[in-house]
């Protein structure tokens, strides 16, 4: 594994010609992240390319979520530029399931169908096409049998996969997952990581997920972004690594 500065990764020429694969979906240039005047990280340079499984590793409170929120446009950068090749509606976001309020009585179907809300007008009944698609994405995550169940009655692993299905329902170019493996048992961790790998390999998605477990990130990710002490840097695997 070789260590590179994020800037180098972003500017490096990858492969031959400028195909879609060679264009970054998101790039951050000299970005400072933070809330109001509280700086979390500075001089962040990062590019995310299609078909890559990227792990964001760092201790709790190091700024992983702040970085995600900046990429998603939920937080404005304090300085620098964020470029996105697609509109935000093409970003699939999987929040931590614990961040969702269990007071909402929501079925699995309703959670997944939320992913289609960006494509459906207010006055429109949800088209049958979208309902069929909801079934398909649930098939992809192996959870179709839970369609009518209450979302908050499910286990941590099941909830996480349902939220991944919701993000897939958006028809995303890039998926961003905030700590998808926290609060999840070992079997579910394995099945979720397998699912993420499958999504990058078969669907050509860029998947950017965070974890405080560096060992796990090193085991599964094509590319590792580290964040700690106000710095963000990239560790890239040598081609043909363990995956």
């Amino acid at each position, binding site marked *: 594994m070789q260590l590179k500065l994020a800037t180098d990764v972003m500017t490096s020429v990858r492969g031959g010609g400028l195909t879609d694969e060679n264009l970054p979906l998101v790039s951050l240039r000299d970005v400072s992240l933070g809330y109001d005047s509280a700086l979390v990280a500075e001089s962040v340079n990062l590019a995310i390319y299609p078909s890559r499984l990227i792990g964001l590793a760092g201790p709790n409170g190091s700024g992983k979520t702040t970085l995600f929120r900046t990429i998603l446009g939920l937080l404005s950068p304090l300085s620098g530029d964020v470029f996105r090749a697609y509109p935000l509606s093409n970003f699939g976001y999987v929040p931590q399931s614990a961040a969702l309020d269990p007071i909402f009585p929501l079925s699995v179907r*309703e959670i997944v169908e939320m992913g289609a*809300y960006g494509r459906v007008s207010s006055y429109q009944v949800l088209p049958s096409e979208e309902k069929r698609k909801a079934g398909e994405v649930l098939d992809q995550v192996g959870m179709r049998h839970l369609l009518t169940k209450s979302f908050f009655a499910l286990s941590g692993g099941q909830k996480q996969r349902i939220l991944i299905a919701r993000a897939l329902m958006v028809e995303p170019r890039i998926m961003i997952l905030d700590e998808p493996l926290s609060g999840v048992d070992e079997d579910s961790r394995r099945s979720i990581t397998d699912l993420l790998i499958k999504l990058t390999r078969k669907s050509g998605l860029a998947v950017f997920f965070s974890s405080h477990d560096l060992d796990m990130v090193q085991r599964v990710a094509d590319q590792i972004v580290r964040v700690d002490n106000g710095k963000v840097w990239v560790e890239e695997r040598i081609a043909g690594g363990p995956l």
Partner: protein
Amino acid sequence: MSTLFEISNPSYLLFPALLGTVILGLVCPLIGSYLILRKTVFLGLTLPQIAAAGVSFTFWLQQTGFLPQWQPGERGVGMIGSLLFTFLGMGLLGYMEQRSKGLAEGRLAAAYAFAGASTILFIVFNPAGQIEVLNLLKGEVIALSKGELRLLAAVFGLVLVGMLLFRREFLLTSFDRDLAFLLKGQQIIWDVLLYLLAGVSIAFGVIMAGPLLLFGFLVLPALAARPLVKSMGSFLWLSSALGLVMAFFGFYGSVRLDLPLGPTDVTLGCCLIFLAHLVQRISPRRALGLIFLSSFALWNYGCSATTPPAPLPEAKALHNETLWVAKVKNSTGLPLLLPATNPLRSLAEMAGKVSSDYRQSVMDLLRDDLRGELEQRGFRISLPEQTDARFPAFPADSGNGIRLAREGKLSGLIFVSEISRWEADSRQFVRVLADFKLLRTDDGAVLWERRIQRAVPTPSATNLGQAYTDSVKEVVRDLFAG
């Protein structure tokens, strides 16, 4: 008196009020569901109180001459105050939410206390019509006119359409603001729209139904529905359905038991919450059985025909004994005097039959009408005070009535009447609760008895005196009917 079928009949006197309650019961829980899910339920309590402060403030301004008398009448004026204060309150609370640190609940609690105090102070400042303003604030939905019902239906119809049309946006913004931003852009527009619909519902609801009933409809059906559902769709429709149940059966209970509508509805709503938690704890089969049994019992009770009252015995059958018609006892705690401008008083004064400081009361009118009706039926009437001027009004309690008659050495039959309620609601009708008994002094037997408990329509009354007079005539007619 009324079965479920009777109150559901469009020709029923209080049918507009029933429809108004049903509209509130249908729509308010949809708004309340979001207030609960967004954990802003205290806003649902504070805003109606702020709206109420607006109502009393506008009345005070009008009474002091700062505002001109306005054609649309009391409710129209109150509505302006209600709308103005609701939106000002929402804006101020929103601004403070953005700017201030500290507890949101604390701000809402302080606003609630301040609005409550202001409401009372504006009523106290009001030099005239304190009772009328209080009645309006109590939200006598029961006095809803057809025009007001049309306005209520139009406003709440629009709110319902808004809630249905933007249900996905409201859900997404409430549940996952980040996803809402990614898919729909700035969510502030949906927040504003949701609170606008809530504000309009609250402002209009307060003036039509009062803060208590409105708050009840906002939160109680949704709280009852929550433990029973697994999806948002079923949560919303069940909240609305329970709101309807609360509105309809609460109205029925209020009419049948002569209870005030707001507290009756709210109590029923609380019972629904208790039932919902009970149902949730037992097996689905037992829950279904419980729901079936409760529905059957409620329906059976509601639809049961009431036994027609027994007719007054004929004078001949009672051997033409002397019938003493006692003074009518007033147990309302109110004087029930007719206003000084009552023409009946002037006529009596002119005839020299009453002193100039005498004012006729509902009790006097009622006894005069009772006496006339009984005379027509062939009874030989005497008045107890003709034998002894110290005779007081007799209570309808037969034991005490007989005791009083025996102490005064009255023999034969005695007709006693007692008023427990005689209340004019916006001059369209008078709510009456009164007991009448025919007693025999010799053996203390109750030969006939009747309770009148109903809202008596007084459509042609233009003032309180006329409303009292018309209602007395209607009650006496009802008493001896059949």
